[in-house]
């Protein structure tokens, strides 16, 4: 058992590392003009370069070779003044030789960290020895700040930790009741429908569930919010009164009911087909007794483990509900952070979710081993 846990822990670490690599790559890929996203359309190119430099987005992606290359092309005509940030002239070279020894390049002066050259027309590639260590790269910085939860939002400069503490309660106030009520309601309905299997109730149940699955989430939200505005407008938006939260909770439960009932019904029915149930029924026990004493109990394990696997995503809240009801939760934050390219928040939240998910997986695997006698460790 101990060996099993250790093995799973090792796998968990690999998974988390995998998630971080994935999100890093994905985000860098989608980043687009991240400086423009933060500076707005009226920023100049130079401002954007400076911003990228400030936030370390011009550092090498994975490994820092300690060398920076700058290409400059001077058009025919007057020589140009080119400024290179290098610390000292020894650090600047062109094609292996110190820059100022190359034909057409003269060292004019140094200003602080900047070396100023006068360059005749032509094409040059300056190589600057930055003296930066190999680990001074975007990926390393990303891993370190994310793993220590030290990330700060680019936009507001708040710590991720305080943002989560401030917003998570709102998301949870929405998703936890939805999960709890959804589970209870779906369980109740699924049991009844499975009990009357094949009858009219079953068919109607399936029909309604599929109907529920097909009505778009948006339609639920808009329809019910519209109704609320007619009946009791103050409850239709916002959390001025904390009980207002039950309106979006209700919507969430209703919208998810269809899918949940289908799934639970399938689990219960699969269990009903097992040999021990046929034996018990053959022995003359009424279905009701068999259901309550045996079937439901055995269904709980797959149902609850399925539920636990959704727990890590609870903290993200429901995007649409938060947006329509003005609930300042984390789901809305994630989407807007992706759109605004607030990269530290996106990676921080994804990392948190992945961490929770891996922990939840571990918990369910171990609970399977403890509670299900059929499962053997290999």
């Amino acid at each position: 058992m101990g060996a099993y846990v250790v093995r799973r822990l090792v796998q968990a670490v690999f998974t988390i590392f995998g998630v971080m690599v994935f999100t890093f790559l994905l985000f860098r890929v989608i980043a687009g003009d991240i400086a423009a996203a933060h500076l707005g359309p009226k920023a100049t190119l130079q401002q954007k370069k400076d911003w990228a430099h400030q936030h370390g987005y011009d550092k090498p992606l994975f490994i820092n070779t300690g060398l920076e290359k700058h290409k400059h092309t001077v058009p025919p005509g007057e020589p140009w003044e080119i400024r290179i940030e290098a610390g000292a002239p020894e650090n600047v070279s062109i094609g292996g030789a110190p820059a100022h020894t190359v034909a057409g390049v003269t060292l004019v002066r140094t200003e602080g960290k900047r070396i100023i050259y006068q360059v005749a027309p032509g094409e040059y590639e300056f190589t600057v020895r930055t003296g930066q260590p190999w680990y001074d790269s975007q990926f390393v910085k990303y891993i370190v700040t994310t793993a220590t939860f030290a990330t700060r939002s680019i936009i507001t400069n708040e710590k991720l930790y305080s943002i989560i503490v401030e917003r998570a309660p709102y998301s949870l106030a929405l998703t936890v009741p939805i999960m709890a009520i959804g589970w209870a309601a779906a369980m109740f309905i699924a049991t009844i429908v499975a009990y009357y299997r094949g009858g009219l109730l079953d068919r109607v149940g399936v029909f309604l569930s599929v109907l529920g699955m097909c009505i778009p989430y948006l339609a639920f939200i808009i329809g019910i919010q519209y109704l609320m505005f007619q009946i009791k407008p103050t409850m239709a938006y916002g959390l001025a009164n904390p009980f207002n939260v039950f309106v979006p909770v209700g919507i969430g439960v209703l919208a998810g009911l269809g899918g949940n009932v289908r799934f639970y019904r399938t689990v219960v029915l699969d269990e009903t087909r097992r040999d021990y149930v046929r034996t018990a029924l053959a022995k003359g026990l009424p279905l009701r007794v068999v259901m309550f004493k045996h079937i439901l109990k055995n269904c709980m394990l797959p149902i609850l483990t399925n539920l636990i696997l959704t727990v890590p995503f609870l903290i993200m809240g429901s995007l649409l509900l938060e947006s329509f009801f003005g609930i300042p939760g984390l789901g809305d934050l994630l989407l807007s952070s992706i759109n605004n390219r607030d990269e530290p928040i996106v990676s921080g939240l994804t990392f948190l979710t992945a961490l929770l998910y891996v922990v939840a997986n571990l918990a369910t695997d171990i609970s399977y081993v403890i509670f299900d006698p059929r499962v053997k460790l290999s």
Partner: protein
Amino acid sequence: MTETSARTETNHLQDLPQGRSLWGDAFHRLRRDRAAVASVIVIGIYAVMAVAASFLHDDFIASKNYKLSNQPPSAQHWLGTDVFGRDVLLKTMLGAKVSMTVGLMANLIAIPLGLILGALAGYFGRRVDDVVVWLYTTLASIPGIMLLIALKYAFQGKVLFRGTPFALDLGGIHGLYIALGVVSWIHTCRVVRAETLKIKELDYVTAARALGEGHARILFFHIIPNLLHLAIILFSLGFVGAITAEVILSFLGLGVEVGTPSWGTMINAARLDLVVGRWWEVTAACTAMFFIVLALNILGDRLRDALDPKLRT
């Protein structure tokens, strides 16, 4: 004397009941099941609409008429018109093409991928299993929305194998198939892996191993055939997932190319329409989606019943 007894012997043989394979038996059951037959017919109708759409597309695009924008249902337009004055009934039928192809293509990618990886993981165990489990746990840990958005951005504007007949327009519909396929193979893989672990221990498989049969043979001839029934069920349910995903992707702005009618864009476009009383476009798209999803669900259920060995007595 001997002649007559020989003839009666042969007659007896012919009177023995014929055995049936799993597939033949399932087919026979389904043919009798009215709900299943109805579902297949519905799916067939949608498939025909999808094919017909390619021919009707140009007419639809040309039928724009700004003066007829947003008309309610009438005799000429049974389901009203959209913002550009085009017939909503035709638009809904054309939308079937997008949904059917998305469902088909995304699952054609996801199911085989999940099947192969799950079978390999379950069969070989250890390192292979570790890698596959690591892969799908990692992907599952990233919130699905972020993964879809990220993939779609990564694909924006890129075209693989440009100029060849196999050009993959990643920024357009092909990227959508791949993105959905990549996100949905995980469920299949999990289920297949669990099933493979059970099949691996069956008698005839262990016998084949003892006989020294190669891994490839065992996989192809013993394991995978026993997984096919699972694959079919997962395919029909996965179809549903792909169709609904298209709707969500439209909401996020990542759906089909501009100008292509699809249920997702119709639903997404209609947010305030319901309040204003413009119900026809949303209802048409939702109803169309409802029937195909219902048909697929029922078919999937019946297939599971038909292919489940325990139900056959």
